[in-house]
């Protein structure tokens, strides 16, 4: 039983990261019906930019750990948001009127480009965040040892997700985003600047992905140029699992995927755990063809 709880926390910690990245997929999908395959690489860029800022500014010595982490998160989010918006402008905007898969291929090209650009700039080897930036203390909850930073990281992702949820649901801009997601033409007639909204979505999604990259860098320490591909694929799976286009769905899907992986590794086989989580995904989709929280709508005609 203790092992079960331990594995549950392991799964939730991994799942929190998946969920945070999945949000970027799901938001972009919501407004553009585009699977942004370059999203995983924006996540890597976040991790690399975080390291560069960290090393070049020497923040930790000047203003202490907590303040510098917060500052770092903000800076990385802003920078990755700018890159995301540029990506939208260059690679996706000219394709908005064409077939959906056209933009997918453009996204795949962008992904290859980013991956190799990181390799060209930072070199092919892995890079390591400095150690002991963060306290390494474990907390004992119900007989299970959980490192403090995992709890912090999990809470941070939950806070970011909750903030996003309220932003989308309660604010005027959020309403505009939802309107564009439902019907671009009608939204435009209502006086919403659709281009601006899409640009905004391409800022928020990558910003969240970039912050996830920074968290992975800070907590796990090791980053390399192709790590975004695997995280991106997992997060895409999570977004689909929850029902793509649906924000609570992405959170649920991410956490669930993390837990399925941990449980699969614990009770079945480590080597087969990825196959297992895809298997579960396929079974869920056969039973619920639009994911767990996806709307049951007929394909548009």
């Amino acid at each position: 039983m203790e092992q079960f709880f331990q594995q549950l926390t392991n799964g939730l910690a991994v799942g929190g990261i998946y969920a945070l990245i999945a949000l970027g997929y799901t938001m972009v999908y919501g407004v553009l019906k585009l699977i942004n395959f370059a999203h995983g690489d924006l996540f890597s860029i976040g991790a690399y930019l975080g390291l560069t800022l960290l090393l070049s500014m020497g923040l930790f010595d000047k203003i202490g750990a907590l303040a510098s982490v917060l500052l770092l998160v903000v800076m990385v989010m802003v920078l990755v948001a700018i890159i995301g918006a540029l990506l939208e402008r260059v690679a996706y905007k000219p394709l908005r009127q064409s077939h959906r898969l056209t933009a997918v291929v453009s996204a795949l090209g962008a992904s290859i480009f980013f991956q190799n650009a990181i390799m060209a700039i930072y070199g092919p080897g892995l890079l390591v965040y400095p150690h002991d930036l963060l306290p390494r203390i474990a907390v004992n909850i119900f007989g299970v040892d959980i490192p403090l930073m995992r709890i912090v990281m999990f809470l941070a992702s939950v806070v970011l997700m909750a903030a996003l949820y309220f932003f989308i649901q309660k604010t005027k801009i959020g309403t505009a985003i939802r309107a564009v997601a439902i019907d671009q033409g009608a939204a435009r007639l209502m006086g919403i600047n659709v281009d601006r909204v899409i640009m905004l979505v391409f800022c928020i999604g990558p910003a969240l992905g970039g912050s996830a990259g920074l968290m992975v860098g800070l907590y796990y320490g090791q980053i390399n140029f192709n790590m975004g591909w695997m995280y991106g694929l997992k997060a895409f799976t999570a977004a689909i699992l929850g029902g793509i286009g649906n924000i609570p769905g992405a959170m649920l899907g991410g956490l669930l995927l993390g837990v399925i992986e941990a449980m699969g590794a614990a009770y079945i086989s480590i080597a087969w755990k990825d196959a297992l989580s895809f298997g579960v995904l396929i079974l869920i989709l056969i039973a619920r063809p639009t994911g767990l929280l996806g709307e049951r709508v007929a394909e548009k005609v």
Partner: protein
Amino acid sequence: MKQRICTLVCLSVMVCMLGMGTGWAKTVRIGLMCPLTGSWASEGQDMKQIVEMLVAQSNEAGGINGIQVDLVVEDDGGDPRQAALAATRLTTKDIAAVIGTYGSSVTEASQNIYAESDILQVATGSTAIRLTEKGLPLFMRTCPRDDEQGMVAAKTLDKLGFKKIAILHDNTSYAKGLADEAKALLKSEGKEIVFFDALTPGERDYNAILTKLKSSVPDVLFFTGYYPEAGMILRQKMDMGWNVPMLGGDATNNPDLVKIAGEKAAEGYMFLSPPVPGDLNTPEAKKFLTDYKAAYGKAPGSVWAVLAGDAYRVIAEAVAQTGATKSDKLAAYLKHDLKDFSGLTGKISFNDKGDRVGDLYRVYKVDAAGKFILQP
């Protein structure tokens, strides 16, 4: 910058044409096949740097007995299909010998192509046993085989007195091969294998695996995969507060391991590896280290990239001794006449199959300062 690259390319093309056209200097053309892109790009780019540096040294010294060396580098992308293309491309470039490549299945995809074109191939990181069991006359390798390392691993674990052993690999052909060899040997010695499974390389969080491992209560964890994962495991193992001893294979012999894990977590970690140049007292190794640091501003990464340097050095030695630039003569010299050549990774001799002979493996332990200390 663009212009400079342009001029450089033009110049090098002109130099090449001059070299071939006039024939005033005898040249030997050597190929290097390595993963410059893809997941193993860091190894491949190190291999390229090392071999390029050694070639430049040979040429500055007036060539090997007056024979200039012309290096042709091709990217295999770490993928069998691309490797076959890279190999075919090299066969059209009139090369005397080829160095590489890294992964075993990638090397295997190129073996037949070189064999059919009668080109000597010296592999550098391909440890799968079967590569030299096919009886290809022109194939050899500077790295040891999985079975040898498996044997050393079993011996080391026995010597340290461990009874219950957990084996973790990563399902790459190298790690799986080593894990299988070690498992069979340990079982026959009556050791208990309490855990045998594979992680997925490239992930960041191995807590789920470690939690499961911990519940099998092993005396020691033998990890046969690569250093990025080994570093993460050490780090997360410490965070869990679980201090089981850990032994690794030679793919963890990389200074980055300590960077990833942190000195505290890496302390006491042991691994098997051929000696790196830093442990050798030979003038060749010392010169190599200083030259490499001068050229690239850092110490060479993994031992695998250094093995590519050794591959070049034995080929150069064969050219120097025989004065020949034909593959069959070079291979015959390397297999029969080269004895205890002072390499960058210890003494080098080859047997008839093309395998490197001699007991190469040493046990290393990481000390409190994160240095790799050779164990007696």
